[in-house]
């Protein structure tokens, strides 16, 4: 059982990540807000306890690795990294500015704590398989976490990686699919339906789970489950909401890349702070 305190801590972290992400993107005036917010609860669960890492030593050998293949969710991860002490929180406001260490898509050479460079969708899947394979080869037992978008899994490369990971029995590879039902041009179902994602992975030889990806308890439990499972890589299909936590974005059909005015940012921050206050008091 997970302690109530842990759950509360992770929920608080998720709210802070949402607020910092809103600030960074709001400060710029535009950005990939939808897909950053939909995966935030999972990122909070990872950095709030599930994952081994050391902010003072980002290259620590024993750490777990995170490959965010949907690299445009970078801002949410940068927020988590800053909140956990990898770099100052103020640096988040340099997002996409000239000379920044925080580009719109994840970059292992620029950002402390970012393990892999992504941005061309699909490629992170193979990278994560390679990383997991490398750890296994060296006899290390650290985990490799992979985050995929639901639109992203339309890329054939993803399924090549999925097939090969099962072949190599990479049971220390844990993959999340952010099933927020949308991609850039609209609903995934209307464009090129990815359907029952869990069954597809299972058919490729993976251990599958399907959960509410906005529910912190379910996320933590699913990760624990996945860690226990032997001989197969694990997928956790997350039912999520694109733009989660910013009401305006949640309602928009096209909420992949959005403009955000100062007023909208302030409004969203007010709502999130109120939620945070309520949670802290609980």
């Amino acid at each position, binding site marked *: 059982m997970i302690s109530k305190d842990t759950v509360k801590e992770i929920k608080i972290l998720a709210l802070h990540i949402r607020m910092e992400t809103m600030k960074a993107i709001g400060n710029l005036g535009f950005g990939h807000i939808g897909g950053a917010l939909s995966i935030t609860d999972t990122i909070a669960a990872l950095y709030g306890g599930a994952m081994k890492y050391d902010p003072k030593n980002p290259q620590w050998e024993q750490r777990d690795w995170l490959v965010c293949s949907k690299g445009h969710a970078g801002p949410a991860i940068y927020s988590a990294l800053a909140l956990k002490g990898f770099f100052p929180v103020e640096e988040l406001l340099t997002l*996409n500015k000239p000379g920044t260490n925080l*580009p719109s898509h994840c970059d292992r050479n620029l950002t402390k704590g970012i393990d892999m460079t992504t941005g061309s969708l699909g490629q992170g899947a193979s990278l994560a398989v390679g990383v997991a394979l490398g750890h296994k080869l060296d006899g290390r037992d650290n985990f490799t976490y992979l985050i995929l978008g639901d*639109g992203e899994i*339309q890329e054939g490369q993803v399924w090549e990686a999925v097939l090969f990971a099962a072949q190599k029995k990479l049971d220390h590879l844990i993959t999340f699919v952010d099933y927020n039902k949308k*991609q850039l*041009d609209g609903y995934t179902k209307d464009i090129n339906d990815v359907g029952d994602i869990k069954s597809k992975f299972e058919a490729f030889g993976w251990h599958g789970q399907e959960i509410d990806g906005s529910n912190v308890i379910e996320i933590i439990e699913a990760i624990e489950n996945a860690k226990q499972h032997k001989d197969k890589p694990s997928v956790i299909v997350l039912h999520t909401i694109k733009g989660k936590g910013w009401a305006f974005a949640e309602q928009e059909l096209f909420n992949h890349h959005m403009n955000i005015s100062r007023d909208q940012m302030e409004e969203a921050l007010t709502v999130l702070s109120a939620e945070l206050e309520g949670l802290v008091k609980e």
Partner: protein
Amino acid sequence: MSTKLAQERITEAKEMRNVYCETLIELAAGNKNIVSLDADLMNSMGMVKFAHHYPERTFDVGIQEANMIGVAAGLSATGKIPFAHSFGPFATRRCFDQLFLSCGYARLNVRIIGSDPGVTAAFNGGTHMPFEDMGIVRNIPNVTILEPVDSTQLRDLLKQTENLYGVFYLRLLRKSAVKIYEDGSTFTIGKGVTLKEGKDVTLVASGIMVDDALKAAEELETKGISVRVVNIFTLKPIDRNLIIQCAEETGAIVTVENHNIINALGSAVAEVVVENMPVPMERVGVNDLFGEVGPQNYLKQRFGLTVENIVTKVNKVLSRKK
């Protein structure tokens, strides 16, 4: 070809993507074989209007560029004329073997549109910033590579491709271009355009750098240097005759491009020059670097895509000429 220079080089009101969409709608009205494909960037490309007009001829395959190019090639084998779009890097790097074999080697009839050339990818950053797209595509035998500089040129070139056969790569700015040509100008694929006469040096420019090349030429004229400016909008097949003529008549050439100086305009012009009429040459462009994130103007400075740098290179090439 009948070109007239714009009276005033101002930023056009209409974005290039909208001109692309409108022109394709117009072509599709007269030709039922025209089909449009995209890989989850139809909204970014402003192609929703096309989809409304021709839903049955619009194929948004989702995020799978290699499959899109293969499907486009298959469609063309049945007589369709596919126009397939993605961002430049994903329309080229991500699916090069499909471009090369399924389209090129199989001698099929496909138009590939790669948007957000070079630094115009700006806030999408290094992963999305193609400094290599034309260089990659140039390796396909018989391919035609076009980089329209403004909406007038884009409209005219798009219309011409309707009745041509082969593999075409169109490098397309999505945003508003600076107007270079007067409305109604027409162009010949494979022929460059002399925008300004001059006798000391020739600037050979394409895409967003044409405006900067003209600015640099104007600045250099005030210092008594006579600069010819040529717009090469067809990277392949390149206008050999015009380049040889410029080498002969001005004795020095500087290429100016929003691309890696390796494998695109700089290389193609150098190949023609050394084989036919060796003269000193310099290249303005991205000096074999990866892209990075930031506003377009910052990136232009960062990668030396500036009027100052063109002026510097002209002075250098002139000193070598002596």
